[in-house]
């Protein structure tokens, strides 16, 4: 796939699989994306969908804190992260559970984070994924810095940076993309344009016709892709990664998708968008497209499909139980990770909490 063929100013976007699962962009399909691999990625999408549903269930049952659902953004999550290789970095925002899972973050840890434990961001040593980032767009420059470090070390790795349509309005995004252009850092700016920043629609974020065209001003390519099309997302991200990896500098990808659920479980979308709009979008389910394609290829039997969903339901429930059991409730943790060495005043405050919890008296000397 040639990125130059998709000039955002000309309005073209990368599309391979249509809404009925028909291949409409056969020449764009990556050579390494065999049907077997596609089946594997479909598997990851199902895993994400089920893990997302489980999180919502737990949130409603009071087992989890506020949670941002991924529903509708499975293709953007999986198609992008799937192109990464060993040593590559992934820098998430907060709606990238599928991408994080794909890169080796255990689901139990992600659940732990949303359940309310910092230990959920204590990823295994070999996992090159940054923690979930709540302040919108502030993580983008971290990804550029990681890519810069990789370039200086001649690692040959790429950094995949996620953010949403709202983040493109922030100075952080502009500054980070500008640095990436100047220093030619090997990174991919992957914008999940899900059309809403909580209640504010994409049209209010910018007067620009597309988000992808913003890359033009920073001196590197930007491409639009059908973000609900797993194959298109994969193809575009793969092309971007190839360019970055070979020293060609960064690429911006605008994955046009739709957030079917609320911003978070604390949000009420009925206050800002019509039910009909959401209903219309529901027919464009990223999983359905791949499923229809796989069925047409004879790769998916109803029995296998049922087995797949049941397998993941069992798996995510096990991960949820694991997360709940694994959360340490040690109040020392509040204090012990601010500095490599605990300063005296924090040691005092830690002792104070211990005394309160133990029902002992106040310490006499602060």
């Amino acid at each position, binding site marked *: 796939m040639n990125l130059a063929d998709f000039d955002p100013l000309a309005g073209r976007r990368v599309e391979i699989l249509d809404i009925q699962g028909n291949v409409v962009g056969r020449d764009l399909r990556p050579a390494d994306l065999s049907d077997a691999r596609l089946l594997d990625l479909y598997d990851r999408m199902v895993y994400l969908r089920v893990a997302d549903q489980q999180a919502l269930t737990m949130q409603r049952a009071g087992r989890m804190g506020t949670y941002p659902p991924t529903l509708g953004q499975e293709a953007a999550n999986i198609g992008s992260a799937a192109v990464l290789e060993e040593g590559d970095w992934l820098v998430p925002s907060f709606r990238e559970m599928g991408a994080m899972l794909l890169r080796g973050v255990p689901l139990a840890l992600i659940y732990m984070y949303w359940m309310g434990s910092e230990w959920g961001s204590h990823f295994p040593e070999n996992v090159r994924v940054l923690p979930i980032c709540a302040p919108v767009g502030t993580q983008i420059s971290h990804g550029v810095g990681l890519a810069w470090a990789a370039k*200086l070390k001649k690692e040959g790795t790429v950094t995949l940076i996620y953010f949403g349509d709202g983040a493109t309005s922030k100075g952080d995004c502009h500054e980070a993309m500008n640095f990436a252009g100047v220093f030619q850092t090997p990174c991919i700016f992957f914008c999940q344009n899900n059309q809403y920043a909580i209640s504010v629609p994409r049209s209010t974020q910018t007067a620009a016709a597309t988000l992808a065209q913003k890359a033009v001003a920073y001196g590197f390519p930007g491409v639009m892709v059908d973000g609900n099309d797993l194959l298109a997302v994969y193809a575009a991200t793969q092309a971007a990664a190839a360019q970055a990896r070979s020293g060609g500098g960064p690429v911006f990808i605008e994955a046009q998708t739709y957030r079917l659920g609320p911003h978070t479980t604390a949000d009420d979308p009925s206050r800002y968008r019509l039910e009909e709009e959401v209903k219309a979008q529901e027919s464009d389910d990223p999983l359905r497209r791949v499923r229809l394609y796989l069925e047409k290829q004879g790769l998916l039997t109803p029995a296998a499909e049922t087995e797949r969903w049941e397998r993941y339901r069992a798996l995510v429930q096990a991960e949820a139980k694991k997360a709940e059991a694994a959360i340490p409730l040690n109040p020392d943790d509040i204090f012990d990770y*601010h500095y490599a060495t605990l300063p005296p005043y924090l040691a005092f405050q830690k002792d104070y909490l211990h005394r309160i919890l133990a029902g002992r008296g106040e310490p006499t000397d602060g």
Partner: protein
Amino acid sequence: MAKLNMVEAINLALKEEMTQDESIIILGEDVGRLGGVFRVTDGLQALFGPDRVVDTPLAEAAIVGTSIGLALGGFKPVPEIQFMGFLPAALDQIICHVSRYRNRSRGRYTLPLVIRAPYGAGIHAPEHHSESTEAILAHLPGLKVVIPSTPYDAKGLLLAALRDPDPVVFLEPKRIYRAIREEVPEGDYTVPLATAKVVREGDAVTVVAWGSMVREAVRAAELVAEEGIAAEVIDLRTIAPLDDETIVASIRKTGRGVIVHEACRTCGLGAEIMARIQEKAFLSLAAPLERVTGFDTIVPLLKLEDHYLPDAGRVSRAIRKVVRF
């Protein structure tokens, strides 16, 4: 041994440490070819190349933000913010990420970086070039804030900061960048962080200061010495974590205290120091504590700037007041 000013001492520390630690990268506005607007990084790009002393686009948030990524990627970045007045643009990164990364990942990720910034008033600079907002930084859990007041300490503290496993903001009092020359050894030595220094001993009153105010405090101590008042002067050197043990030990001896800072009074670090003294040495106090600070105003432009800054005269008045209480 060479007599150096603070600019030269910091330059020497950077040069020596960059020679032995190849992970150090300096980045910021004008730090490379120009050598910094105060010439603190003078000659370093020629020595270490444009990959290690990097002229960046003009964007403070990204200077700190990419430094976070560089640190996570195994480097030790030393970003420079050209003036503390421009730090607010980077404050989002400092508050939301620099100070939090170790804790939010339970130690999985750490950020051993040193953010340098010239700070403070007194050089008749333009608007937004004279701020001293160090209390905002000292308020943040997870951050260390270091402020040298002499060339010798500047080198030793910077070397300690560069080797510290946690993020350090290193604030350089630009008013005394070139005002003091003293012997600064070549080669390795460190001044430990979070340790205040008694720079002048006395038993009548404790004067706590940092940055350019240490010089005013010492001058005030010299003034009142002629009147028979022996003032002890403490240079904090690190304002976070605060070495209150040294302060309290001195107060227990003198029973009287004056805190001096050029930042605004309200919610300034002086308030925290007074609170700590009150908590830990209340029964040692023979008089109410005094603060000599900048006013709760925006630093005036240069025509009125000198009225804003505390000086030896104001400090000596406060000393006399608490001693005669």
